[in-house]
């Protein structure tokens, strides 16, 4: 359900109707790069997602990382929390912990299957799923109750968001699930990366049909190199990078001069995303979630298109 008041700058901007940009930080096994990236993204995006064991590779805790990033850089964080690795007790205590650390946004995720990462022998948990995790957080924040129904005297003020995967076929199970998550208390949505305007249109048709009434940020992935696009195409489930976009980027590999290659890569991205973002302006999208790790220089160019 849509938020009535804003506890974070991110939600404040969404409620104001402004087109909101969010970025993404992957703490990995060393926080240093994320801190640098957060400083680079400051002023370019409103908030940054901090990933939680992405693709099931053991990483610095998203909660700890988000706290340090907020404290050290002032970048507001949307801290990601997945159900793969913790049971409901651990999730509950972590969210209460996030509250005392000053986190104001959380993205409730199911999480990639543990076998796909660097610790495949781990026992998968999935005690809750993204819907019940959303409901758990909603109830904590708005009713002051923990998952067992016990009173929580000073519940944290935070916004819970969810992900959506508009690119799957059939789309119906995914859209019903999204509706279910919004009914459970999701206050914003960040979608998986979309490249095709047809996918955007089909998604918003369903959003309207099911009366999903919370701000939705569309995920985009401008690729800083052919290698980055290829990696994304091969390793991220639920997303196919368009062949023509990949083929065009592949041509840049031949360019010897580093500066010229950069320029050409930027040109390809700007050309592709100009069309995409122009199209997005005619939809109810509340903003964009940019999963362009290590590619902040493209963001001002993209923002120009929308503004």
């Amino acid at each position, binding site marked *: 359900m849509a938020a009535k008041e804003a506890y974070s700058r991110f939600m404040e901007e969404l409620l104001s109707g402004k087109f909101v940009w969010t970025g993404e930080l992957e703490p990995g096994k060393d926080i240093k790069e994320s801190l640098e990236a957060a400083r680079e993204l400051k002023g370019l995006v409103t908030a940054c997602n901090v990933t939680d064991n992405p693709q099931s590779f053991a990483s610095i805790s998203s909660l700890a990382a988000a706290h340090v990033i907020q404290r050290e850089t002032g970048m507001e964080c949307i801290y990601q929390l997945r159900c793969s690795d913790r049971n409901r007790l651990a999730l509950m205590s972590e969210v209460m912990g996030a509250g005392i650390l000053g986190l104001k946004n959380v993205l409730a995720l*199911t999480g990639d299957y543990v076998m796909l990462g660097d610790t495949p022998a781990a026992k998968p948990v*999935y*005690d809750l*799923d*993204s819907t*019940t995790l959303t409901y758990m957080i909603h109830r904590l924040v708005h009713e002051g109750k923990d998952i067992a129904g016990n009173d929580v005297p000073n519940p944290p003020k935070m916004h819970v968001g969810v992900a959506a995967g508009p690119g799957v*076929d059939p789309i119906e*199970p995914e859209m019903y699930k999204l*509706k279910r998550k919004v009914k459970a208390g999701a206050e914003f949505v960040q979608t998986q990366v979309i490249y095709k305007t047809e996918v955007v249109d089909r998604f918003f048709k369903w959003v309207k049909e099911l009366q999903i009434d919370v701000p939705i940020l569309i995920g985009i992935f401008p690729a800083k190199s052919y290698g980055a696009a290829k990696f994304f195409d091969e390793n991220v489930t639920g997303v196919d990078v368009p062949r023509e976009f990949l083929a065009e980027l592949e041509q840049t590999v031949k360019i010897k001069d580093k500066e010229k290659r950069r320029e050409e890569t930027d040109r390809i991205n700007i050309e592709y995303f100009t069309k995409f973002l122009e199209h997005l302006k005619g939809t109810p999208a509340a903003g964009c979630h940019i999963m362009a790790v290590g590619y902040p220089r493209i963001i001002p160019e993209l923002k120009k298109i929308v503004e």
Partner: protein
Amino acid sequence: MNAQEQKPFEEILEHLNGAKKIVLMGCGGCATIFRTGGIKEVNDLAERLENTGKEVLARIGLPFGFLCCYLPVSSKFVEEHIEAFKACDAVLMMSCGDGAQTVREYLDEKGVVKPLFCVNNALGYSGGGPTQFHEECLGCGDCKLALTAGICPLTQCSKSLMNGPCGGVRPDGKCEVDPERDCAWVQIYKRLEKLGKVDLLLEMREPHDWSRAARPRREEVESIDMMEELARTKRAIEALGVR
């Protein structure tokens, strides 16, 4: 039934750890169907062991339908060979872990305490046959099939999700863990659509109650009359022409 596969022979020898005199006991249930502990497999393994210099004191094969995990039957076979059990260095159970431990407990109570282990790896509940089997039930103790079009997401979804698909669904509706398999929630959706009950997908399901699966579970039931049941089985086999 309980799907199973036999361990590699080398591993079996390793577990025997020098034991020379062996008792082999099979099972006339799942292990016969999965060819991991029927009468033929008991004899085959006995011969392989004998070829490595082991002495097999008893080859206890249970006819089809006689379950190792059902003591009213299996205890009779144990009793018939009790002297061999007493004299052996180790007992090899060609059943699932249920059958193996049921017999182990019985022997312990009789004061016959022997190294005993299972030569099979049990793979959990499955249905199908005669050649293809698939896992359908987790034995969670709190069945919700009525809400999920008769397809159990706790079992069919790699993540046991109760509230729809995860973000790992591939663009073609397959599972992120196994690209050959349809996402459980895509299957559930398709079946709900045929049943005209897609609205069930809009309701949030509470987190599953795992307290019903707290282990080890114990159940008590009134015992059956085996002769009466077997007579029924015989009549049914004849009437249906089961082979």
